[in-house]
């Protein structure tokens, strides 16, 4: 079978191996990157970041942030249609935002400042915010606009959750053909799509959802999958590339692996101890071995692909200094808990490797398992927050401010997003100021200062920035990273014959 080539009737199909589970395609859950890549072909958001990092309109043709930054007015692209042929209106936008806020789920986390919308015309609405925020608009990149009439028609008392779990109500370039939870999703190109058309995009997109490593790899090796990001460098990858029909594209992701400390509690309330741990880890080897070369050593508290970063040297191991800094900890005999999520092998590998390095320095570490929901729950109390946690982090939006404020400011301590329960008035001040600053350069500068402070204080331990290797057929181009979406963006792929 060669579904990548033109079909009998000249149609093109591209089959993706998706590494994760999608039980539900309600776009309100798009904060989960697997769900995001599953809904992104079918829906449009108001705005999105382009690969170069600029925020551009999608359903919104323009928007205007009020001077006090407490409201934003959006104008919608005219002529935009949902798949059932009805026009996209400001009412739909209001419905979508209100629904997410009411559900308090998923992308609602980007709408914390959202208060209400006021529809001022078919194509225009004004959104009110609780506090001045320059981050709000960027956060809308993953808020997909729903066809309100269609949803309401099918909604029960549950805001349409049950119906949207397996149906779509979008205006994107693809329509849903079949959805089998956790198995497969098939999309077909919508001939009537009203946005920027990509004529070379595949006519049919197939997602095969294969969460386990082994079958994913077997299917890839057997040639049953066209596109995959699940293969590590090594013999498997070589084998796939060997017959010359495939190529590999490396994409830097706005995602990194970190270790966060519970900075509110001994021993990690002492920056020296945090630094000691930081110096004990072998970053180079992590990238080379654990990531099989697919990544870069971290160079700051935010991933390297983001804008507004200070110049920071890559982190490096220094065992002598680490030993010195950790001697007190080693002598005390305290056993530290290091939490990780066992379903992700990179995390368990990193945890194991750190444990081993620290053991050599006389520091006892016990590995404890957690899972993301529990971790977030535990973060709501300093007492429950583990001593150390290894975790993947990607910024809520590609705007560096979103990451700095939710991860490192006092406001978010015990709120479930400040992973280190980090509290530093100086950082708070810088970040708050930046968020309220409309001027780009000035804001950027403030962000850089804040980041430098975080690095100097060893507020967290960034290990590596990740890179995905996407394998595609040779004839596929346009594989690029859209910073708000860490997964596939198949509608942007172009196939040539």
């Amino acid at each position: 079978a060669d579904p990548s080539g033109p079909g009998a009737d000249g149609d093109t199909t591209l089959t993706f191996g998706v590494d994760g589970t999608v039980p539900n395609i309600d776009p309100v859950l798009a904060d989960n990157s697997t769900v995001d890549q599953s809904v992104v072909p079918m829906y449009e958001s108001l705005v999105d970041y382009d690969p170069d990092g600029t925020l551009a309109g999608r359903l919104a043709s323009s928007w205007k942030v009020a001077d006090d930054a407490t409201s934003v007015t959006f104008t919608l692209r005219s002529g935009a249609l949902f798949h059932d042929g009805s026009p996209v209106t400001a009412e739909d936008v209001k419905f979508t935002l209100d629904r997410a806020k009411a559900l308090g789920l998923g992308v609602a986390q980007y709408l914390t400042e959202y208060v209400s919308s006021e529809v001022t015309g078919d194509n225009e609405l004004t959104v009110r915010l609780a506090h001045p925020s320059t981050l709000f608009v960027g956060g809308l990149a993953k808020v997909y606009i729903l066809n309100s009439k269609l949803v309401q028609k099918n909604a029960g008392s549950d805001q349409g959750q049950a119906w949207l779990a397996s149906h779509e109500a979008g205006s994107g370039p693809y329509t849903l053909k079949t959805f089998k939870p956790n198995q497969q999703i098939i999309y077909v190109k919508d001939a009537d799509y009203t946005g920027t058309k990509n004529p070379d995009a595949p006519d049919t997109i197939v997602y095969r959802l294969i969460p386990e490593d082994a079958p994913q790899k077997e299917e890839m090796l057997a040639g049953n999958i066209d596109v995959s990001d699940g293969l590590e460098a090594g013999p498997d990858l070589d084998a796939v590339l060997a017959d010359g029909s495939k190529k590999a594209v490396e994409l830097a992701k706005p995602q990194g692996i970190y270790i966060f400390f519970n900075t509110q509690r001994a021993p990690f309330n002492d920056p020296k101890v945090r630094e000691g741990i930081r110096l004990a880890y072998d970053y180079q080897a992590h990238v080379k071995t654990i990531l099989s070369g697919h990544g870069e050593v971290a160079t700051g508290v935010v991933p390297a692909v983001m804008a507004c970063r200070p110049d920071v040297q890559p982190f490096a191991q220094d065992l002598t200094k680490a030993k010195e800094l950790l001697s007190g900890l080693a002598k005390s005999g305290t056993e530290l808990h290091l939490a990780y999520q066992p379903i992700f092998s990179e995390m368990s590998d990193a945890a194991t490797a750190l444990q081993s390095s620290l053991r050599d320095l006389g520091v006892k570490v016990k590995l404890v398992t957690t899972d993301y929901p529990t971790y977030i729950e535990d973060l709501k109390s300093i007492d429950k927050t583990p001593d150390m946690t290894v975790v993947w982090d990607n910024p809520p939006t590609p705007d560096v401010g979103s990451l700095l404020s939710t991860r490192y400011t006092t406001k978010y301590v015990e709120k479930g997003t400040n992973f280190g329960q980090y509290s530093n008035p100086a950082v708070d001040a810088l970040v708050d100021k930046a968020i309220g600053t409309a001027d780009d350069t000035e804001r950027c500068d403030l962000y850089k200062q804040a980041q430098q402070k975080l690095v100097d204080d060893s507020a967290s331990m960034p290990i590596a920035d990740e890179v995905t290797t996407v394998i595609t057929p040779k004839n596929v181009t346009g594989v690029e990273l859209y910073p708000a979406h860490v997964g596939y963006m198949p509608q942007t792929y172009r196939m040539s014959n």
Partner: protein
Amino acid sequence: MTTVAIAATASRPRRKRLPVLDVIAFGAVVVLLAMAVAGPWLAPHDPYQVRLDRALLSPSGDHLLGTDGLGRDVFSRILVGARSSIFAALLAVSGAALIGIVVAMVATIGPRWLDDVVMRLCDITLSLPVMVMALGVAVALGPSLHSAIVAMIVAWWPGFARLARAEMRTVLTAPYVEAATVLGASRARVMTRHVLPNSLDGVYVQATLEIGGATLIMAGLSFVGAGAQPPSAEWGAMVENGSRYLSSAWWISTFPGLMITLTALAFALAGDALRNRSHPDSTLG
């Protein structure tokens, strides 16, 4: 009345030669147990030492069975892992057997209603597959080898309880038990001297047979992440950890997989041999 001389011809069972297979099985069990005890001292490398620079080395003189994704020596990990893998199974099975025996005793001596309640409880527990039960316990207690052991004890005691109870009931009606009662033996004496020693054969055999199964289930639990956790060298966890490298570094998961099979096989054969000796061909299995 003449005293009858008891001739040596009285049918004393001739000692049978041990079949080769049985010898091998018992030998393998002994070796495995020795490994479980002495593994850490035999390991040529530190099994927990992460050496990222030596990851994925294929088997060689220095690393007999190669290294894993974090550069740890697979051979050393297998040796050390014997302890958690085998002891966990032993612990689970002996715990379940012990609880089963105690419960069976209570049910046997106790009043009728207690017996009914206990047996109902057994039925209920038996209707939940071990794997499902274990995953449930893993959620309750958090995934770890300990939870896996607890889960298996929870899931398996009823099997032993039923077996022991059935045997105890049979033994309880045996004439020699009634003879003891007629002699005036107390209930406690009857239970401890007569019933208990004569009703546990089946339980021992069953326990030996189950150890192999327990190893497999433990490994399965680790495989789905509900058993032993890193950096443990438990074999199931090792297989899981190595499954990513199956086509590139086959040795990481193949050898622990083989060890699991070997262990299960050895204990199953040993149990089978035991059973054949105690009562050939008469029970399940």
